[in-house]
């Protein structure tokens, strides 16, 4: 939780419109699922910071990595940065995933949902878990970091919508196929909201605890403005709004009120 200025170490394309950014930043520790709020430019357009998940972290060198897709002016600005340039960052922010020890886990990444799950995979393996990593993408050339995932020692399962690699179809279909036989103790997912809703329902059906990382438009990133609220059921069953930035971005899947989102 700090405001700092980081220096670009590397920043290069690694897929269609997808970049990997490495920043030198005074971050002592962070955990998978946390994010950093980056100022994109110095003017008023874009105005707000942009949240990016921590994709990897090297505590020795104090370097953090991001994996991001260029979708608008903030990420386009980021993509144009070159080594040595400075970027203002706020974070790490939010609560990360709660990582168990020595369990059987499924990590389910849809598209850019891979960003935080890569870091999570590293930590989960380090904590003695056996990890199956489900990566879903539009097509083969959208697949990300396959080799490094394999090197981490996870079992990698691929699904592409066009069938150009791995299973043909949605990553959630692949998970549904395997969920009964695999006997997971926990599921961790990040990706488009519709995908997460399916993961949540699969997890509920199979009585497997699941943690999902949600996205919402953000302003402060600190829990102050209530701008990033998502509908969450409290333990007593009452509906409330919680902040993705400060109470998330990771929520227990069964607590998310999937049906009452505003869009």
């Amino acid at each position, binding site marked *: 939780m700090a405001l700092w200025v980081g220096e670009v170490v590397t920043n290069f394309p690694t897929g269609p419109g997808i970049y990997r950014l490495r920043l030198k930043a005074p971050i002592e520790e962070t955990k998978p699922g946390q994010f950093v709020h980056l100022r994109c430019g110095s003017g008023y357009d874009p105005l*707000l910071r942009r949240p990016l998940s921590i994709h990897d972290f090297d505590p020795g060198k104090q370097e953090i990595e991001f994996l991001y897709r260029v979708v608008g002016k903030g990420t386009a600005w980021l993509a144009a940065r070159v080594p040595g340039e400075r970027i203002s960052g706020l974070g790490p922010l939010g609560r990360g995933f709660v990582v168990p020890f020595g369990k059987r886990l499924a990590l389910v990444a849809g598209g850019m949902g891979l960003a935080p799950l890569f870091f999570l995979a590293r930590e989960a393996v380090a904590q003695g878990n056996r990890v199956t990593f489900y990566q879903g993408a539009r097509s083969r050339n959208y697949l990300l970091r396959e080799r490094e995932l394999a090197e981490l020692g996870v079992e990698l399962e691929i699904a592409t919508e066009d069938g150009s690699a791995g299973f043909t179809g949605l990553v959630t279909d692949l998970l549904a196929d395997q969920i009964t036989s695999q006997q997971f103790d926990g599921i961790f997912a990040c990706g488009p909201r519709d995908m997460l809703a399916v993961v949540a329902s699969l997890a509920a059906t199979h009585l497997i605890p699941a943690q999902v990382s949600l996205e*919402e438009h953000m302003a402060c990133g600190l829990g102050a*403005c209530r701008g990033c609220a998502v509908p969450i059921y409290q333990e007593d069953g009452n509906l409330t709004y919680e902040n993705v930035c400060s109470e998330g971005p990771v929520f227990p899947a069964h607590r998310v009120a999937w049906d009452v989102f505003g869009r």
Partner: protein
Amino acid sequence: MNLTVELAGLKLQNPVMPASGTFGFGEEYASYVDLNALGALVTKSITLEPRLGNPPPRIVETPAGLLNSIGLQNPGLEAFIREKMPFLRRFRPPIIVNIAGSTVDEYAELARRLGEVPGVAALEVNISCPNVKEGGMAFGSEPEQAAEVIQAVRRVTTLPIIAKLTPNVTDIVAVAQAVERAGADALSLINTLVGMAVDWEKRRPVLGNIVGGLSGPAIKPIALYAVWRVARSVKIPVIGMGGIMTATDALEFLLVGARAVAVGTANLVSPQAMLEIIEGLREYLMQNNIDDINKIIGSLELTSPL
């Protein structure tokens, strides 16, 4: 060098405070900002009962602006007093509690109850929230209704009353003068402008609530104009806000007549914005050999010096 300003009987060590709703209840910013360095602490709007707020998405960025439809999410009066006030009381700057009601009686009840709470230095009466169905902006849109709310609050409290006005009116001066007559001790302006954003790909409004309030640099010219007009038309002091991002922005509001300024959207971009603004004002005075910030207030020159 003097940065102190007086406002509705409060003595502020400097004229910079957070704009309601952009600084939570202070806690969220406490690790970034020395709250003791601020001119005042202003809370998010408090309602009598807890409010869930509006469905997401609640915010969307617009060119140089921010559109929000938070909808006054807050824990309600009693939880605020119980859970938030003890933290705020730990700091020296006066605590200004912002209140919002759905009825005139609710405003009065909030004011009455807060008058009993130690540490509350003043009330900012939000009659200008564009994001709620009942009350809010509806009260601030007509001089008579606005005056009615302020009168009702005036009757039940001796605390200084700061009326927070909306710019979404034909004649903000008429509203300002009406609440002045009704007993307001100061004015806050401006609240957000009503706006809308459309997701052309999905062909839907971006905000869950369809409409929201526009803040940030985009609205600064509108805010400056409102403050300038109102400050010349009333005797009570004005807290100016709307798009203040830097010390020079703050200076512009002081020049057109604001006695103090509030910083909103800038906090959301940089948690240290207010500290930098205070520092920048100090530097400006020093570099221009001005010993008292009050000499700046309202000192805009209107005639060409040629």
